[in-house]
């Protein structure tokens, strides 16, 4: 990419610094090798050679999961590649709303994206220098609970080809049987990973169980915790930090099943978006670029993916870009990850109210363990929380009133409870929107 002129996006959007030549190469490859993109670009009357600027790129209609799902494999996987090839990684996105997807990615491509992201955080550099990254994963099951969350499975059953150990996990987090939590914690001890790749809500629950049950881990030294899958809330960051101590690096990363590492947090706590391996845009629903400080959907074009490239792929994730450079010195721009669009709400007037916005209102509470703001099918909001004991009434009232204000005067019921169900996919949502008029967005 060096030596190529940088894409100059409009003033409103300054997130990406990938080169336009690299983007055009990607589009040319996709057009030449993949039937779906030939049809897609042809339908819009665009030839790859037409792509000379960010404005030209935006003429290509955005793509989404449905395009890659319905054209898999023949339309979106370059000829010569197939599942089972030594360097091909098969990734599966469960898709909680029927939006599932199977993707093939070159193993090295994934490794590059990971290395790019981890490179922004000095405390994670030891992973790059390690002889081998021994990863243990603890997150929602990626497939039906009939097989993947089978409580009778053994470590060998859950070892991935790349050597990652998937820890045993229950499909409904908060009622995970104690023996499965004991086993997960025991397997961390036995496997001795140097990288724990975890859903922060699941991991907090596991650590909380370990603390209550008096389970000990010999040492967390030499272990990094990468949180992904779910928004890292203040509550779960605090719980993980409290239980592991300050010497264990805990960094939030955004990784997607279909793309690998998209962003990572630096040591200053700012999230850097991977603009080395992707051309990224933040767009509104009409596809127009949004200005810094405004929530927009991340739209990604892969760079250098010669197996299954993605062009202007709408990720369904909301971000808010920063304008100022980060003190860490990374050239990659920073943005706040705000959560999934389908888990967000709309305030009167149409502005997004995202899981990150909700978390800012909920704030840091010593007693809080888990929470969920749910909008039911009738549009009613209910905030449910689980604490260590009964929450202080004034604090619960503050949260209720704060959320009502955030949602433009919506009426919010708040209740303390002992149980909040996970999603069918096994994910635990801090924000859940079942209101039909918004859930479709």
């Amino acid at each position, binding site marked *: 990419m060096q030596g190529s002129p940088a894409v100059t996006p409009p003033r409103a959007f300054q997130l990406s610094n990938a080169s336009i030549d690299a983007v055009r190469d990607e589009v040319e490859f996709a057009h030449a090798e993949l039937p779906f993109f030939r049809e897609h670009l042809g339908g819009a009357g665009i030839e790859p050679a037409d792509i000379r600027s960010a404005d030209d790129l935006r003429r290509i209609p955005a793509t989404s999961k449905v395009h890659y799902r319905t054209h898999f494999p023949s339309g979106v996987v370059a000829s010569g590649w197939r599942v089972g090839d030594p360097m091909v990684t098969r990734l599966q996105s469960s898709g909680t709303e029927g939006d599932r997807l199977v993707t093939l990615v070159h193993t090295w491509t994934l490794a590059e994206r990971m290395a790019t992201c981890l490179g922004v955080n000095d405390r994670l550099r030891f992973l790059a220098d390690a002889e081998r990254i021994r990863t243990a994963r603890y997150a929602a099951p990626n497939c039906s609970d009939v097989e993947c969350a089978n409580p009778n499975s053994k470590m060998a059953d859950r070892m991935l080809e790349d050597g990652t150990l998937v820890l045993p996990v229950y499909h409904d987090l908060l009622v995970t049987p104690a023996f499965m939590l004991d086993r997960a914690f025991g397997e961390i001890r036995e496997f001795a990973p140097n990288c724990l790749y975890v859903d922060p809500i699941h991991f907090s629950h596991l650590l909380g169980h370990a603390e209550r049950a008096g389970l000990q881990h010999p040492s967390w030294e030499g272990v990094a915790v990468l949180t992904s899958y779910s928004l890292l809330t203040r509550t779960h960051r605090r719980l993980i930090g409290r239980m592991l101590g300050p010497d264990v690096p805990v960094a939030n990363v955004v990784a997607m099943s279909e793309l690998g590492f998209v962003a990572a947090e630096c040591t200053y706590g700012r999230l850097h978006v991977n603009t080395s391996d992707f051309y990224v845009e933040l767009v509104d629903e009409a596809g127009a670029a949004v200005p810094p400080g405004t929530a927009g959907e991340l739209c990604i074009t892969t760079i250098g993916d010669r197996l299954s490239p993605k062009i202007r792929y709408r990720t369904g994730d909301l971000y808010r870009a920063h304008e100022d450079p980060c003190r860490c010195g990374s050239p990659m721009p920073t943005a706040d990850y705000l959560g999934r669009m389908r888990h967000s709400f709309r305030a009167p007037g149409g502005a997004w109210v995202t899981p990150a916005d909700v978390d800012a209102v909920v704030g840091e509470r010593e007693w809080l363990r888990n929470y969920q703001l749910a909008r039911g099918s009738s549009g009613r909001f209910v905030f449910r929380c689980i604490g260590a004991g009964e929450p202080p009434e004034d604090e619960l009232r503050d949260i209720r009133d704060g959320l009502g204000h955030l949602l433009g005067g919506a009426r919010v019921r708040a209740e303390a409870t002992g149980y909040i169900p996970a999603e*069918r996919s096994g994910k635990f949502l801090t924000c859940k929107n079942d209101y039909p008029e918004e859930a479709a967005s």
Partner: protein
Amino acid sequence: MILEPAAGAPAAQDADLRIEDDFPVLQRQIDGRRIVYMDSAATTLKPRSVIRAVTGYYERYTANIHRGKHRLAEEASDRYEEARYRVATFLRCQGNEVVFVRNTTEALNLVARGLGLERGDTVVGCLDAHHSQVLPWREAATLHTTRLGADGGVDLDHYRELLATRPRVVALTHCSNVTGVYLPLAEMTAMAREAGALVVVDAAQSLPHRRLDMARLPADFVAFSGHKMLGPSGVGVLFGRVELLERLRPALHGGGMVDWVTSESSSVRKVPHRLEAGTPAIEGAIGLGAAVDYLDDLGEEEIDRHDRALSALLLHNAEQREYLRVLGPTRGVERAALVSLTIPGVDDLGDVARALSDSYGVMGRTGHLCAQPYVDAHTPGEVLRLSAYLYNTPCDVAHAFAALDEVASRLGARA
């Protein structure tokens, strides 16, 4: 702790929730007369959202659950399990403590047979219980019935005496489907637990009106039916504490309840799936989830206020009429919105029910109401029951009693 929304809710009339339009059956006329449905203790009407949820399964994603990898199977599985979570949230219990069954009767039989009781084990029950909370226990063990006191309510002294015999199970009926009287459930459950008994609650009549908080009520099992709470027929729920569900012997063996089967052995799935053998009523569970949503959206306080208001109205109207006798206690107890009546001088209440239906559009019920020992002991043989639910209004109650006045006087009522 629950904090209601800060802004005041628009005040609904306690006895009229103004939701008739949600119920297609109420839009129907029979022989030119509007329907006044007063048989909700038998089964409730269904709102459009429940009907849509059921037909949605048939029209959009018919598939069997938990096994397939195709999109429809995944969608059906998701909706089915989401329904379980909705029920769990409604009960304030855990998702794996909700077992889908066919109805309350199946749930109670599952517990009675699954606990491994023997003939010599004793079970304490209630005199005014539904047959479904009597017969399974008679089959599985030895049932002793708590007497009623002079006021018609449960005799707690006798109950205490029976508990002293150290029964293995206490089978409580939260609300009688005959008298509409609510038991002091929290008190009786606590007494039973103190005596070391498992507590099994038939909540078929109560849960549609008064939500149970399983985080606070120390009952071990609770059974209820979807069709009595706006949901479809063919689906019910057994709530059980997870450690007890794990000890419960499955009534059915076969597909869906095993993790692994070899030529000689098998290992059962975790709860609740091990108790749900075979293809369940998928659309029923999904419809029940929609019913729970509907109730949740109305709000438990609104529902409770409506239940109390209509209960008072039904009782007031019945007591005002000298030709009617109300079955069960009318003072010093909590009552649901139902009255069971006898009419001295009228031997065939079936004629009354037919006339109410055909000439006035009032749908009530007559008979022993599946509580024959109690009804036989306190009536000439059958009762006329009028039972109301969310969609009923004071106008419905007034219409029903005015109709009853006309019918009864022509069919031989004394007074």
